[in-house]
């Protein structure tokens, strides 16, 4: 019964979304305030219905209702509670429902907290959100309905894919979706601005917190997914340039660019058209990501199932929204007023350079992701584009960007002084030179590239610290004065420093872990010892393990450092009985910021097993840096300027009373 109610609520949500898309739009175009006022209530009720529907599906999972096909296919009564819940979005249908839930949530938030928005802008924004909601609700109901029943109901479910039964995967999709779908808000604002035909600094001030929030979630979601792949897939890589990873990375690159261009628009009223274009691009890339992942045109861990009908449906949605928004942009962008002037060497100029490099990098990732699809469609020839392609294209574009990063915040608006900025970065220059000299002396010229990578990381880290030190007059004024200055700085300033610092940490982690790692693949028997990262690993023996729906074998390793035992590691080989699927569970131990990583191959009857042992120097910095970046974003989001609410825009002609 609850399942039917959930199904019904979803249908009602679709009907209301249609109304919530058409009525406020018509109202905004004809100036009918009653119709515009429909938007907030429609959005809130849609949120209630979708939330109920999602709750109904979760309930079916919790009680293991095996008369529901979706539960049968993805759950099992013996599965731990947390994976019963995460199983709701561990499959195509449920994850699309989560997508729509988050979309409705963002719509509801705008409806509730957007009271300082002009009525017309708010109505238009919510209408665009409802239109997106309509498309995806129709998609779920037509092709991916999670509420379909099975008759007769089987006694037991087929279990969730074992590699997805993991705490990291329980959190990864919701975070990523908060990011993806969060981009829909800035998209809706951009479309609303194009329909409305006006855009100003206040608009940027509304868009920025939404973009920032989406960016923070996207950063955390990608980080989580990367760490999951690292420890769960058992081969020690953390980024594979897999098309599905790229699908989440492209919106991140575009959102990062949008974040920076919105600053220019907010402070200097410039780059308006470009910002609107970026907002459209960012969400278009999110939609493209959804299409790539959901349509099954790509095979990957994320493509749960491939069904041509779904692919075509999402392709239609894609064409409608991307085509529609770009046509609207082409028609209306010219009507938006141009903003302030600036010299090439200025804060604006630096942010433009950031945008150019980020979008160019994003374009190379897009090319690498879509080229095999296009080539196969056009010529039938099959190729795969792998890491070498992205190393050769994405890497070289990132290097100039990272060199420029510390300069940006030190340049003044309108007209900057590059020489003065360089002087303020003097300490960073010295450290970079020291890194190169010491690095080459210690590691030799064979690691020259890695040393330059380290120098780049040092440049980013010390550069962002120099910028903060300059602002608070550290060492140039009494300490009390510096503290007073620091407490007077807006949180957004610390956010910038922290985010750039995080980028430096990530680069440091990437360079160090790829240049100074030990990798051993060898056969071991109980009693054997291997060396990695200055530590010795002894295989003591095997013991059986079991839990939930699996059983397997764990190998016990003792790790010694100079004769003393510092850790024991127990990587596992599991067999999930329901899906008859073996998995490898790696064992990881963190020493400082570096990690020792062990995973098992097949265990032979005589007790010999292939073992993969990694020592990865500073590898945790890759994810720590990303989390620091997200913290910087969150800190910036809590800035008073964004929290308290933007000032009302200058009113034109007959004033529109605020709500």
């Amino acid at each position: 019964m609850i399942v039917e109610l959930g199904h019904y609520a979803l249908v009602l949500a679709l009907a209301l979304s249609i109304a919530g898309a058409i009525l406020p739009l018509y109202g905004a175009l004809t100036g009918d305030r009653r119709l515009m006022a429909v938007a907030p209530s429609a959005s809130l009720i849609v949120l209630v219905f979708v939330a109920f529907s999602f709750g109904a599906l979760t309930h079916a999972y919790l009680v293991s209702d095996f008369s529901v096909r979706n539960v049968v296919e993805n759950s099992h009564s013996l599965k731990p509670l947390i994976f019963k819940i995460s199983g709701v979005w561990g499959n195509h249908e449920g994850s699309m429902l989560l997508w729509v839930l988050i979309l409705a949530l963002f719509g509801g938030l705008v409806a509730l907290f957007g009271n300082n928005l002009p009525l017309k802008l708010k109505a238009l924004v919510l209408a665009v959100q409802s239109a997106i909601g309509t498309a995806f609700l129709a998609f779920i109901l037509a092709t991916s309905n999670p509420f379909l029943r099975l008759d007769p109901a089987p006694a037991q479910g087929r279990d969730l894919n074992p590699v997805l039964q993991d705490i990291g995967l329980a959190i990864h999709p919701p975070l990523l979706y908060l990011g993806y779908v969060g981009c829909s808000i800035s998209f809706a604002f951009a479309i609303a601005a194009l329909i409305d035909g006006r855009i100003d600094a206040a608009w940027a001030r509304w868009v920025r917190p939404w973009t920032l929030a989406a960016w923070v979630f996207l950063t955390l979601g990608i980080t989580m997914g990367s760490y999951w792949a690292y420890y769960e897939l058992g081969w020690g890589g953390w980024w594979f340039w897999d098309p599905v990873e790229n699908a989440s990375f492209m919106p991140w690159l575009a959102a990062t660019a949008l974040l920076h261009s919105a600053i220019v628009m907010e402070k200097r009223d410039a780059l308006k058209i470009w910002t609107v274009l970026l907002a459209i691009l960012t969400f278009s890339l999110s939609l493209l990501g959804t299409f790539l992942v959901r349509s099954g045109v790509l095979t990957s861990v994320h493509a749960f199932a491939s069904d041509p009908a779904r692919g075509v449906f999402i392709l239609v949605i894609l064409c409608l929204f991307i085509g529609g928004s770009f046509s609207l942009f082409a028609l209306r962008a010219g009507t938006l007023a141009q903003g302030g002037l600036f010299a090439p060497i200025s804060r604006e100029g630096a942010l433009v350079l950031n945008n150019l490099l980020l979008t160019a990098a994003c374009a190379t990732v897009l090319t690498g992701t879509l080229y095999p699809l296009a080539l196969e469609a056009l010529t039938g020839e099959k190729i795969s584009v792998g890491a070498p392609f992205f190393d050769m294209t994405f890497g070289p574009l990132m290097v100039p960007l990272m060199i420029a990063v510390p300069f940006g915040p030190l340049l003044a608006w309108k007209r900057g002084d590059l020489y003065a900025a360089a002087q303020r970065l003097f300490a960073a220059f010295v450290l970079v030179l020291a890194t190169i000299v010491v690095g080459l002396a210690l590691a030799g010229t064979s690691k020259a590239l890695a040393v330059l990578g380290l120098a780049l990381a040092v440049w980013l880290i010390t550069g962002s610290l120099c910028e903060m030190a300059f602002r608070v007059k550290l060492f140039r004024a009494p300490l009390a004065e510096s503290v007073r200055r620091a407490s007077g700085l807006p949180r957004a300033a610390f956010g910038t420093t922290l985010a750039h610092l995080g980028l430096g940490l990530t680069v440091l982690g990437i360079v160090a872990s790829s240049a100074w790692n030990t990798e051993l693949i060898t056969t071991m028997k109980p009693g054997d010892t291997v060396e990695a990262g200055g530590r010795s690993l002894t295989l003591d023996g095997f013991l059986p393990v079991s839990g939930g729906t699996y059983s397997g074998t764990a190998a016990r390793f003792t790790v010694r450092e100079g004769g003393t035992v510092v850790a024991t590691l127990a990587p596992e080989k599991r067999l999930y009985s329901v899906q008859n699927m073996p998995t490898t569970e790696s064992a990881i131990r963190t020493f400082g910021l570096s990690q020792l990583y062990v995973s098992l191959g097949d265990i032979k009857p005589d007790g010999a097993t292939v073992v993969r042992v990694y020592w990865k120097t500073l590898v945790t910095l890759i994810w720590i840096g990303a989390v620091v970046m997200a913290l910087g974003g969150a800190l910036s989001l809590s800035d008073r300027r964004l929290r308290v609410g933007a000032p009302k825009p200058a009113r034109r002609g007959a004033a529109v009373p605020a709500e």
Partner: protein
Amino acid sequence: MTRKQRRLTLIGLAGLVLASAVGLILFALSDGIAFFATPSEVASNPPPPERRLRLGGLVEAGSVVKDGTEVRFAVTDGKAAIPVHYTGMLPDLFREGQGVVAEGKVDGAGLFQADTILAKHDETYMPKEVVEALKKSGEWRPEAAAEGPAPETVTR
């Protein structure tokens, strides 16, 4: 600087970045990609040794020889079989008679030196490329395959 000069500087910079991006892409596309091939295609038309390939087919029954971390096996599409050499850990689901994709290069002796092995991710799944390789050679049995989760990759 006049307004016009500023605009030209901006456009020049944009053009420069765009041109370098295009240049990098074209350069990388000639070098950083792998072509998909079936065992019959490799047997009848041996590729140059520097060309990266993805070889798709079934692991020939009885061909797997493991020696510590070294593995030798043959990939077949029913018409031709290509010997493959790989060092490292095999994916959990690598089995004789099942679908596999090997990525690497063919060496001078006609041995396929794989650095990456992809195997199917559960009992019923078969990589899309393998399905098409089998269809091409006429060895395709639809009942042997069904939808399922994705392939699992293992890189050495």
